[in-house]
């Protein structure tokens, strides 16, 4: 079955194959002559000797000393809250952002309930204002911005580049505590009575007129900003300085490129938000300041400063999703990513140009028409690297052998929805058209296609793709695919009508609307309930899998990438020995050409195999 390595035996599953290949690479580490990483990942090759060592279903029961998984490194709550292990911090983040996601979701549910009827009969106008503010603040700062970077970024950056941890593990833990502290401030403000400014905190309403808890909410956002900064700083340093031997820049997985670009935005944009909110809070507190025209200030200054952060922040939300897409699509198309370098440069281009487009939020604010023209042109420019990415994903699919597993379904949905979101962004980038569409539901639909259709779909895809790696367990693929389809249908039903509503002129942020908009609003609310089901479903089957799911093995998807070459869940130190990288990422085409074990459907083996065989083949055993 394999030509370039010892046979693994007939019972070996694809996942076991690549795990078994690992000791070989590590054994060769000292001689600096490891086999190509692609070859390692291929099912061929590997030490059959490790196979009989596979223990029962208890990872700690083996006779040989096995690397302790990060999940087994202490079981008390304190062992989690004091852990500086990037994998544990990722889990802390995952749990917290999930809580915030559903908190923000409750607000969205109430919004959609109100909008079923044209009359404002379910909540008052003030409550409605507080609801959409709560929804926006929580979803933007406490879910979307930290979502993929703080969970998957934290978990995967060291694993993907072959490092033991991030460069500054204590800062990493601090960033989680800052996140929680910021969250408490904000939730406190929301519980104490809410904020009605919208997530944008526009002055002078936020400084002079709003009678709600603006300062507390702003403080929360200020604090959580430093959590982002620390995460970004950690990633930049880690990616620069801690790559495994042979892991050159152009051998980095595209997810790492995406994390790098995201981190640049974290580090350079967030401080501007921090100082802006600081000025806002003082101005509200003391009645002196630079944003209120009555005080000789300039409200446009606030908008410029705010969007200088908040537009790049949109790319914080979408770039990680693009990184996830690049990992998953190439894996399930069983084909190398198309035009790797252009993908890497496109991410950087989006991050850099993204810093120069903030004024497109202010086309109708009264800013100079020439500024508007420049911002419009720059905004159109962002479409180029974005289109490069979409075309390259499509080209990756072309003639690939595509497997429609749950992660792939999510990510195929991502590509389509991101394309719609991106294209409608061009409508809004056009100066004349934006006058009509500004502050309508068209804008709402546009950015939800990017943030929910794009980021959240990719986040869920990432959850399903890396779940076996993170937990060591397989979930029910049937349920997962069902949920993916439900989310896709529910999403489109929720947000596509909003494009039409916006085009017809329904403004955002009102709790009442003319009766002729009711049909589309009811469609949207109906879609939201479908979407809610789609979001709740994974909670059930994923938690089920934690206890009852079959063992995943180190590489259930036969994916390339260093994270798949270490056991699932990974040991505390990530790798028994730091791997040596000798080839670019994504060796799928070579894998497909090489002889391989029979495979009935898309990577079904681990699920059908049940517990045991592929699980945690210890690297040390063979060394």
């Amino acid at each position, binding site marked *: 079955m394999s030509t370039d390595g010892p046979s693994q035996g007939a019972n070996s599953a694809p996942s076991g194959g690549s795990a078994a290949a690992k000791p070989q690479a590590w054994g060769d580490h000292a001689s600096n002559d490891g086999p190509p990483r692609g070859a390692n990942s291929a099912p061929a090759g590997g030490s059959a000797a490790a196979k009989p060592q596979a223990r029962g279903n208890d990872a700690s029961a083996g006779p040989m000393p096995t690397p302790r998984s990060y999940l087994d490194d202490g079981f008390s709550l304190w062992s989690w809250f004091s852990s500086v292990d990037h994998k544990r911090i990722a889990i802390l983040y995952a749990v917290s952002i999930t809580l915030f996601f559903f908190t923000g979701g409750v607000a969205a549910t109430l919004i959609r309930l109100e909008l079923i009827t044209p009359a404002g009969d379910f909540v008052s106008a003030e409550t409605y204002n507080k609801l959409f503010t709560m929804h926006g603040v929580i979803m933007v700062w406490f879910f979307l911005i930290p979502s993929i970077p703080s969970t998957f970024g934290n978990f995967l950056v060291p694993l993907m580049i072959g490092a033991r941890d991030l460069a500054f593990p204590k800062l990493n833990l601090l960033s989680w505590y800052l996140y929680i502290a910021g969250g408490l401030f904000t939730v406190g403000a929301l519980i104490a009575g809410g904020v009605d400014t919208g997530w944008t905190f526009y002055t002078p309403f936020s400084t002079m007129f709003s009678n709600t808890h603006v300062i507390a909410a702003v403080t929360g956002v200020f604090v959580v900003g430093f959590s982002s900064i620390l995460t970004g700083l950690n990633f*930049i340093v880690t990616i620069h300085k801690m790559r495994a031997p042979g892991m050159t820049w152009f051998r980095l997985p595209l997810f790492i490129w995406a994390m790098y670009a995201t981190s640049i935005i974290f580090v350079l944009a967030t401080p501007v938000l921090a100082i802006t909110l600081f000025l806002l809070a003082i101005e509200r507190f003391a009645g002196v300041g630079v944003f209120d025209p009555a005080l000789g200030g*300039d409200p446009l200054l606030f908008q410029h400063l705010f969007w200088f952060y908040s537009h790049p922040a949109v790319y914080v939300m979408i770039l990680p999703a693009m990184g996830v897409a690049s990992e998953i699509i190439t894996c399930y198309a069983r084909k190398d990513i198309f035009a790797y370098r252009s993908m890497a440069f496109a991410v950087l281009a989006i991050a850099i140009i993204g810093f120069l487009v903030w004024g497109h939020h202010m086309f109708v604010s009264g800013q100079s028409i020439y500024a508007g023209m420049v911002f419009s042109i720059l905004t159109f420019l962002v479409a180029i690297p974005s289109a490069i990415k979409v075309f390259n994903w499509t080209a990756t699919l072309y003639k690939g052998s595509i497997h429609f597993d749950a992660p792939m379904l999510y990510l195929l949905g991502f590509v389509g929805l991101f394309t719609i979101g991106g294209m409608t962004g061009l409508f809004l980038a056009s100066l004349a058209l934006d006058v009509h569409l500004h502050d309508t539901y068209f804008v709402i639909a546009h950015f939800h296609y990017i943030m929910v259709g794009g980021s959240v779909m990719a986040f869920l895809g990432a959850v399903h793709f890396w779940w076996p790696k993170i937990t060591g367990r397989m979930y029910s693929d049937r349920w997962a695919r069902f949920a993916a389809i439900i989310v896709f249908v529910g999403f489109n039903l929720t947000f596509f009508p909003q494009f039409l509503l916006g085009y017809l002129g329904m403004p955002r942020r009102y709790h009442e609307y003319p009766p002729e908009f009711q049909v589309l609003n009811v469609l949207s609310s109906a879609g939201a309930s479908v979407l809610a089901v789609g979001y709740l479903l994974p909670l059930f089957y994923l938690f089920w899998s934690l206890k009852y799911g079959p063992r995943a093995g180190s590489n259930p998807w036969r994916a390339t990438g260093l994270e798949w070459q270490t056991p699932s869940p990974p040991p505390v130190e990530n790798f028994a020995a730091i791997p040596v990288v000798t080839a670019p990422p994504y060796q799928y085409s070579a894998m497909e050409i090489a002889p391989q074990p029979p495979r009935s459907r898309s990577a079904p083996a681990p699920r059908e195999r049940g517990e045991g065989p592929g699980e945690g083949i210890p690297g040390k055993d063979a060394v």
Partner: protein
Amino acid sequence: MTQAVIVARQFDDAEQQRKASDLGMWVFLATEVLFFGGLFTAYIATRLHDPQAFAIASRLTNVTLGSINTGVLLTSSLMMALAVRATKLGSGRAALGFLCATAVLGVAFLGIKFTEYVLDYHDHLVPILDFSHPGPHAGGVENFFYLYFFMTGLHSIHMIVGIVVVTVLAVMTARRRFTPDYFTPVELGGLYWHLVDIVWIFLYPLLYLVSRT
């Protein structure tokens, strides 16, 4: 003499650890630049609204004390640079002296700054607490002083952090914690001190020298 450098578990060797720490500090300094950058933007926008008010208000600042303070801070930066050099060369006693000088000059800067604040208060130039200014540009002058206190106040907070850092470094130096092979904390502390210094180099002309020609 050369003690083994303690390498944290995530690093391969001392060199990787040092380079990572260096880069981390530079990235942090970049965030600081953007943090103050937002303030400078606010300054520019507000000044463009009422340039005359800024000219009037700037003449009300205490340029003598401000200039002395600039000298004090630049000297402290020189001391810091010498401390880093001395540490690299392994002369701990000299390094200790230079670090103490840096901290003392930093404290002197804060003392002079505080004196200035008191004098400003007596001149009714402190927005929120006690501000009055005759003439048509009162609003603009108040905004200038709002920014003046915000910017110098934020700078002073950074100075306080810097003095604490330098003091800790001095204690560590006295305990012979640094060798020519291991001086990362001193180097990073130095970088931070210089950044705080550079921020002042921009604040000084923007606040004190608007219309003094």
